[in-house]
């Protein structure tokens, strides 16, 4: 059945309210089950042996001593995960990252794994696996790795995107370029030009729940896996591909997920757990330690970015240019390309050019982190924009409003924009009381804008009407932050029944068609579209059933407020048939009532935010305290405003941590110095103020309710907003993130 996804304005009854979430009681009573909270009979414990070297050739692995230890049931190495990737380079990178083959590429790279009867035996066995390494020179810094004399990670990687193709290998895997117009001509028209270089350090998503799974492979080739993931269907596909399994014989159930932020869109230990289970013939539970999470999973790119922006005295930007170098870890990827696309997306520019370079380093494989690549680019660009506004003597908000992209503007990454929210968020910031609040000594205010694409993707859901007229909604996108409440609201809205009569749950991979992951801010956007479609299909069924019950043509049956109504005059004054009445008769009118839907939710629509931030800097120590913080963002339509606010606040908090304290610190030996929450400093409760939010609702034309994704954009502006606030507080322009106290103090002394 074709589905009309176009936005139609309407008065909402359920959408926009703030009911209690369906999984709330489970989560406050400790009953909700996360990745590590599941067990199978006869299960073994899996542990992974990791390289202590940043770069080393694996000469030999001898597991005989480990296998001789009582209680050890299996040891796996790369030999047990043969290369079935058939030339698919990105899948091969996943495989090699899960279990190093010829070389260990970073401190923490998996080289072997063991399954044993308990954790004590498993850990003891790891110490008995003998690995002979040939240690190689390493490089962890993005600029050092891009230099011509850097130690090479691969001798078969040649910089792509360059004409003519280079003949010597390089750690620079690829070059990409975006833009339009003529930037040099644009700079020639500029009265003032700001040109600076910026650096950002590598950060981690920092989800509180470490990766965990229980894998159980049977001798007949069927298998089950329980796992914390942002996308169990994607994990199923990847694991089946890597292990040579039939996709539908691997049933994956997503547990409750203790945070992901992009870090649980990638497989790490899951294929290893399956390989261990296959070899041992028993279920295997594999839970990462926090140390492993930091050393071997998820970080974002470290970056080095050059920005040049020119403007006329009247405040018109005439040209903008950025060169972005992003670390990818050991395998080619497209993180700089994403950064290059997002850099200037907030602005309508005549002349713009961005160039991205993907740089390979001896660090963990870069993973998506909430609006991946955008925060670093925004830090560089929004810092330069702020400086430029000051130089031409214009208020930074007015300067941005003057140059903001609008409907019809050509975006810096190519396409022409439809209706977008950057202008309205800026206008809202101009009049927000935060903007005019007084500031004390050593205090400063900063603001910045941010952009993220958002996307949709393949989505499938089932809506089942029970005999009492209540509704079970089975969705395939993992609920990372309250989506079950939002999707129940949407189904209730479309059906015209109370929210309390709908219960949404996340179905496993055997129970529903394929769903893309919960990433790209797509969870609520896509699954709400699927839920609306499924509800419409269920309504069609219920109209047919009402027609049977009334014995009138189905064309004469309408649907209003959760009940079937007889249309026109010819059927007398029949009282409506409620969903409960229709459901009660279902067995006699054709069987169970359900609505199904499978669709590709495209047209997610881009997202913009503007943040305002006040800080106080201690000029004697360089300590920065965030005093006040405001997030203004377009949500299209906020389905459950409390959880939309939660996304805004959570993204801002992660951005604040990134801006001030979070960073991977590597020693000269290429080993990670701070793989724990003590020295990888995510914000604690006392670090933050209340985070004010203002939700704007500019309907997305490509969604029936106007919904846009809201999950990611809020992490984009904070780095720059805080840097601009620090600059306004103490007069130093910070170009290196995080702005840790030693860096701020050094900058203050340096100007001094």
């Amino acid at each position, binding site marked *: 059945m074709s589905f009309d996804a176009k936005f139609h304005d309407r008065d909402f009854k359920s959408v926009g309210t703030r009911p209690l979430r369906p999984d709330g009681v489970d989560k406050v009573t400790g009953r909700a089950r996360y990745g590590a909270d599941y067990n199978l009979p006869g299960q073994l414990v899996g542990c992974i042996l990791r390289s202590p070297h940043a770069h080393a050739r694996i000469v030999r692995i001898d597991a005989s001593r480990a296998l001789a230890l009582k209680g050890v049931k299996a040891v796996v190495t790369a030999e047990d995960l043969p290369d079935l990737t058939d030339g698919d380079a990105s899948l091969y990178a996943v495989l090699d990252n899960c279990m190093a083959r010829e070389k260990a590429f970073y401190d923490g790279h998996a080289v072997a794994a063991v399954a044993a009867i308990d954790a004590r035996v498993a850990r003891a066995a790891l110490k008995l696996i003998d690995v002979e390494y040939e240690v190689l020179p390493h490089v962890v810094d993005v600029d050092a790795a891009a230099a011509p004399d850097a130690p090479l990670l691969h001798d078969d990687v040649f910089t792509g995107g360059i004409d003519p193709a280079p003949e010597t290998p390089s750690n620079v895997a690829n070059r990409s370029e975006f833009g339009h117009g003529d930037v040099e001509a644009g700079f020639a028209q500029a009265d003032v030009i700001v040109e600076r270089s910026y650096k950002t350090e590598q950060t981690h998503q920092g989800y509180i729940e470490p990766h965990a799974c229980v894998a159980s492979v049977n001798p007949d080739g069927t298998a089950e896996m329980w796992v914390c993931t942002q996308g169990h269907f994607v994990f199923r596909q990847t694991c089946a591909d890597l292990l040579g399994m039939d996709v539908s014989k691997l049933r994956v159930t997503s547990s409750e997920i203790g945070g992901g932020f992009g870090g649980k869109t990638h497989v790490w230990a899951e294929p290893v757990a399956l390989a261990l289970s296959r070899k041992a013939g028993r279920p295997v539970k594999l839970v990462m330690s926090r140390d492993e999470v930091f050393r071997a999973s998820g970080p974002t790119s470290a970056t080095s970015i050059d920005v040049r922006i020119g403007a006329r005295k009247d405040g018109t930007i005439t040209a903008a240019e950025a060169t972005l170098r992003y670390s990818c870890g050991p395998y080619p990827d497209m993180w700089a390309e994403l950064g290059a696309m997002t850099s200037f997306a907030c602005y309508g520019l005549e002349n713009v050019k961005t160039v991205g370079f993907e740089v390979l380093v001896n660090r963990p494989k870069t993973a998506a982190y909430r*609006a991946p690549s955008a925060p670093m680019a925004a830090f560089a660009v929004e810092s330069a924009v702020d400086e430029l506004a000051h130089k031409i003597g214009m208020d930074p908000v007015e300067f941005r409003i003057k140059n903001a992209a609008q409907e019809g503007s050509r975006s810096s990454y190519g*396409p022409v924009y439809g209706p977008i929210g950057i202008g309205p968020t800026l206008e809202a910031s101009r009049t927000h009381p935060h903007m005019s609040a007084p500031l004390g000594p050593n205090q400063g205010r900063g603001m910045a804008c941010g952009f993220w694409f958002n*996307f949709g993707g393949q989505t499938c859901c089932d809506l089942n009407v029970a005999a009492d007229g209540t509704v079970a909604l089975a969705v395939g996108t993992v609920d990372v932050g309250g989506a079950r409440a939002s999707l129940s609201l949407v189904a209730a809205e479309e059906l015209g029944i109370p929210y309390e009569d709908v219960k949404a749950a996340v179905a496993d991979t055997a129970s529903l068609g394929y769903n893309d992951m919960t990433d790209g801010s797509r969870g609520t956007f896509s699954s709400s579209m699927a839920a609306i479609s499924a509800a419409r299909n269920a309504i069609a069924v219920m109209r047919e059933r009402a027609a049977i019950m009334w014995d009138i043509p189905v064309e004469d049956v309408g649907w209003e407020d959760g009940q079937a109504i007889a249309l026109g005059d010819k059927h007398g004054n029949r009282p409506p048939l409620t969903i409960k009445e229709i459901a009660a008769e279902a067995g006699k009118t054709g069987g169970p009532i359900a609505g199904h839907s499978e669709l590709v939710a495209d047209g997610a629509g881009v997202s913009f935010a503007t943040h305002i931030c006040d800080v106080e800097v201690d000029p004697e120590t360089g300590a920065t305290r965030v005093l006040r913080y405001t997030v203004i963002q377009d949500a299209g339509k906020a389905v459950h405003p409390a959880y939309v606010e939660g996304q805004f606040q959570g993204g801002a908090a992660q951005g604040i941590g990134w801006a001030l304290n979070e960073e991977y610190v590597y020693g000269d030996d290429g080993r990670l110095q701070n793989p724990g929450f003590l020295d990888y400093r995510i914000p604690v409760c006392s670090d933050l103020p209340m985070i004010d939010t203002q939700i704007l609702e500019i309907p997305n034309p490509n969604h029936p309710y106007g919904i846009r994704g809201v999950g990611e954009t809020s992490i984009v502006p904070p780095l720059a907003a805080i840097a601009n606030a620090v600059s306004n507080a103490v007069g130093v322009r910070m170009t290196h993130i995080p702005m840790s106290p030693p860096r701020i103090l050094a900058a203050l002394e340096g100007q001094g």
Partner: protein
Amino acid sequence: MVEVTLWGSLAALADNQKQVEVEARTIRELFRNLGARYPGLKPMMENDVAVSVNGVIYRDQWSKELPQDAEIFLMRRLAGG
């Protein structure tokens, strides 16, 4: 006939052509005909690209019809967090 901009790093896979004209009424036809002309793009188009049609980004909807005057970009498929 539609005009397609090959964006970012994709032009390098198509003899460094940034703008190409392709006979195509849908995204599927676009991919088929582009792949025939530039085999280097073929593996990319399996999973790793998205198409922007008049500013709306399509990742999977290959049956999407392409208006003949549409502004079309072929770009790398985006990752999200």
